[in-house]
């Protein structure tokens, strides 16, 4: 009886451990790649969500989430240490449309196959040797991607 109970509880535990992963993989929103001025672009918002620029700024700064500042300089003077790897994003909204920004956020290797930038919404199955705790998940959620895009669209350089 006791043994059955342990087996059952192990089974139950494994269900709880594995459930979030499979749930995430199912909730991955498909997107369609188009071209705009010869650049890859994704026209429709992911999962048809609406972004919030204020949340987007927080995600861009957060070291555990977007951490855009690791590589890009941004007009956020209250944070120290802006990275130098990617281009500065002070006037990014003037250079790229919303659809182009979305393609760059989802998977920068669509534009430049050599890019160091992580695919923030690359399909979970398209990673090599993904750590177990991240199996089935994307780097950022669709909502977070849309939030960051909403924030990036406010960056129009000197006004």
């Amino acid at each position: 009886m006791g043994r059955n109970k342990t087996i059952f509880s192990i089974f139950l535990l494994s269900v709880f451990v594995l459930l979030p992963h499979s749930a995430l993989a199912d909730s991955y929103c498909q997107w369609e790649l188009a071209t705009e001025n010869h650049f890859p672009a994704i026209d429709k918002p992911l999962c048809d969500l609406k972004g919030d620029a204020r949340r987007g700024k927080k995600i861009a700064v957060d070291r555990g989430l977007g951490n855009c500042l690791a590589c890009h300089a941004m007009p956020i003077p209250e944070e120290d240490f802006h990275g130098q790897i990617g281009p500065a994003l002070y006037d990014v909204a003037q250079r790229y449309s919303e659809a182009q920004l979305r393609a760059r956020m989802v998977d920068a290797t669509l534009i430049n196959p050599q890019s160091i930038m992580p695919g923030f919404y690359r399909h979970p199955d398209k990673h090599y040797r993904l750590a177990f705790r991240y199996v089935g998940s994307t780097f950022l959620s669709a909502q977070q991607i849309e939030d960051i895009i909403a924030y990036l669209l406010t960056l129009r350089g000197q006004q």
Partner: protein
Amino acid sequence: MRASGLLFLWMILFPVQIMAQPPVPTSGYNFLGKDIQAIQDDEFLNPGMPTVELGSQIFRESEEGEKSCASCHGEEGESMDKAKIAAYPAYQPAYKKVHTLQERIHACWTDKQDRFPLLYDDQKLVALETFVRSLARGSVINVEVNEKSRALYEQGEKLYKKRFGQMAMTCHHCHVQYQGIFMRGRKLTQGQTNGFPVYRFTSDRVTSLHRRFNECFVELRAEPFEAGSEEYRALEYYMGVMSNGLKVETPAVRF
């Protein structure tokens, strides 16, 4: 007119010329502040020295009736060739494979001393490796590749340029392409192996190279390989060749 044309051509070609050249090997030492450099150079301040001391103790220890390392190699390891220590990982004809320094020490441990085998990156082995490697402090690294070891070298190169984990970055990205550039607060180094095993402030311990690989993999959100695995040995071999020309700094002090 002609001079300005030539100047224009030079302006275009000069960056191309610089970018085409392989990077000059630079030790992580040169990326440190003066105060940290002073800590590494001072034998009494260097926090890696207790591990060297521990290693030298194990070097002299022996089980009953068996030889210690010191029985053959001298009380302070003085009979070992420093240039050879700086040449690891090296191909071993007797074993028909490439041995990292730690594997070489372990081969002695099991075959010559007949002791119970240890796992790769065992505390004792790391201490011994730190001690032996520190004997060659200042010697120039000279890792060689021959026909029999070329396969491992090429495997290492492939792994070095492979994207891992959710970050999907390669070693090459940070440590070759963007070296010397700031990634948020950190200046990217060349990731040279000349200081390993290295004392790191972030973990407050002497870290072996394979353990450092693990930490890199975790940062990339990738599943690490095992310490002592074929993949890590290949990486160590490839990166050893990259470090050729640098001086051994073990135990180096890094962040």
